[in-house]
């Protein structure tokens, strides 16, 4: 059906790799598996040490936060979590809600706008395509810091400062060229013959986009959603400029307020809230990972 899959007619029952493995002695396989897991766990332990240490430190009393390299301590307390959660006039839950609003806005915006744009660049022929695609790439080449001022001036003129709008609305207009490029590259790995056969079945461009390309691009969609989540969740500069009022603060601004180079910092509460702030991202990752894993299997390339 496709160019890539039109390889030799396959035997009715392909011997799968794991079939072959079952024929080996079972003991050997178990040993191999154990070694593999042991290696992975060792690597992970080293890699995750800083994070584990942070979690450990978040349960120590405030004045012993940096008591040493050990992951454990003599006394454990939940005080940092209680203090951190009830920060300021509000509490940290408000920051979570604010971050969630912005993050969801950006994800929806990026998914809709970038996939539409990417389809055009990957599948359609139109004049100045190369020039326009060059512009997509060019927007990624300029360090964002020098466009902060003109952007701020524009949003200020529009009266958008101190609202969520500057952080969400632009994403509905595909300003994140990274994801356009990612999706273009992804869609271009898909055989074009898929489109052709859909066209023969009477699909228009919208039909091809929606029924063929999008379901086939689930891994790219999952990746886009995941990255957007992480970037939006961790972004500091955007909220700092556009959300000065503390009732609009995001998690990243809230975390930042635990450090004060001119006064009192509370690293214990910082670590506690930083630990909590990882939870939504990890949850989202595990949820969206199904897209990555099942993408190809459920759509069935056969």
């Amino acid at each position, binding site marked *: 059906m496709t160019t890539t899959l039109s390889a030799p007619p396959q035997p009715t029952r392909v011997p799968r*790799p794991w079939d072959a493995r079952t024929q080996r002695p079972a003991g050997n396989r178990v040993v191999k598996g154990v070694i593999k897991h042991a290696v992975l766990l060792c690597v992970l332990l080293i890699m995750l040490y800083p994070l584990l240490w942070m979690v450990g430190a978040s349960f120590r009393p405030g004045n012993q936060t940096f008591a040493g390299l050990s992951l454990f301590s003599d006394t454990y307390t939940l005080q940092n979590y209680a203090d951190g959660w009830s920060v300021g006039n509000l509490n940290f839950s408000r920051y979570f809600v604010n971050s969630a609003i912005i993050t969801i806005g950006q994800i929806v915006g990026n998914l809709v706008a970038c996939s539409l*744009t990417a389809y055009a660049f990957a599948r359609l022929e139109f004049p100045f395509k190369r020039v326009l695609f060059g512009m997509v790439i060019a927007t990624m080449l300029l360090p964002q810091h*020098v466009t902060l001022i003109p952007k701020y001036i524009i949003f200020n003129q529009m009266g958008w400062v101190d609202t969520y709008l500057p952080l969400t609305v632009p994403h509905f207009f595909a300003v994140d060229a990274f994801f356009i490029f990612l999706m273009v590259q992804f869609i271009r790995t898909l055989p074009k013959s898929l489109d052709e056969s859909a066209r023969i079945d009477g699909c228009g461009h919208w039909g091809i986009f929606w029924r063929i390309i999008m379901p086939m691009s689930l891994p790219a969609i999952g990746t886009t959603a995941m990255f957007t989540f992480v970037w939006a969740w961790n972004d500091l500069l955007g909220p700092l400029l556009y959300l000065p009022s503390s009732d609009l603060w995001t998690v990243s601004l809230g975390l930042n307020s635990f450090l004060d180079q001119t006064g009192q910092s509370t690293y214990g509460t910082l670590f506690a809230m*930083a630990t909590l702030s990882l939870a939504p991202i990890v949850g989202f990752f595990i949820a969206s990972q199904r897209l*990555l894993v099942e993408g190809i299997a459920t759509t069935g390339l056969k």
Partner: protein
Amino acid sequence: MTLATATEPPVALPTAPRRGRGRTQLLPALAFLTPWLVGMVLFTFGPMLYSLYLSFTRYDLLSNPEWVGLQNYALMGSDPRFWKSVGVTLTYVVVFVPLLQVVSMLVALLLNSRLRFLTGYRALFYLPSLMGASVAVAALWRQVFGADGLVNAVLGLVGIENVGSWVGDPARALGTIITLNLWAFGSTMIIFLAGLRQVPRELLEAAEVDGASKIRRFFSITLPMMTPLVFFNVLMGTINAFQSFTGAYVVSGGSGGPVDSTLFYTLYLYERGFTQLQMGYASAMAWVLLIVLAVVTGIFFRSSRYWVHYGDES
């Protein structure tokens, strides 16, 4: 597609010649591109052009920009810290980009195999990149690479003492930033992982039946099928490395220290623009970087026709 080594050359189905369709798809293209075009005009193009204008001015944010022609560009040549930042950035790009690609690909391959608890492993390997620019990272990195950090504690166990600080030593500080950014390899890995998922299992199985080794299968099937994403990762990795900012900003507290040893190009640009209030100079630096990156990107795209294989080409 170059799958010829493992399988018989696939018989290309006759598809319409590329330009043979004779007409462009302008109207549908416009429909699909409208959001992007609007965004480009409203939010992207104007600010970019404005920053280009600023690069020819003296602009301290607090008063009006003042036209100075090419002065900012001329000053760069004789600015020793500018050249320091170029040196730091180039070193970083050359070391970091290849390392990142290899590590990400290796872990992606490992996590694409059949293994128990795979979901858990993937999440755990991805975890560090979730920390992002968090202010906590600076403290954590000191915990590992400080004078009394984990690394020195381990070295002490094997009898190597008095190593001193890693983050605080100008000869080693850049290494700790490279490690920090490598630590967050998760996002590059995820893209590779998504690409690996796209490789049809049937092809690999067929190759295995033909007796191709694992390594052979990787280089003859998996890698060629993934070249669009490899291309994406290498290009974006390079662009991001040239613009690397956050890691060094957080760890050095914005100074690029100790003594400018982690003064990345964009870090210096930021210091000039926002701390020293010389936004004109910062804008000029940004446009110099844009031109350099445009050349680099151009070379990448030029070369891509020799090694990147798209599924939409016959």
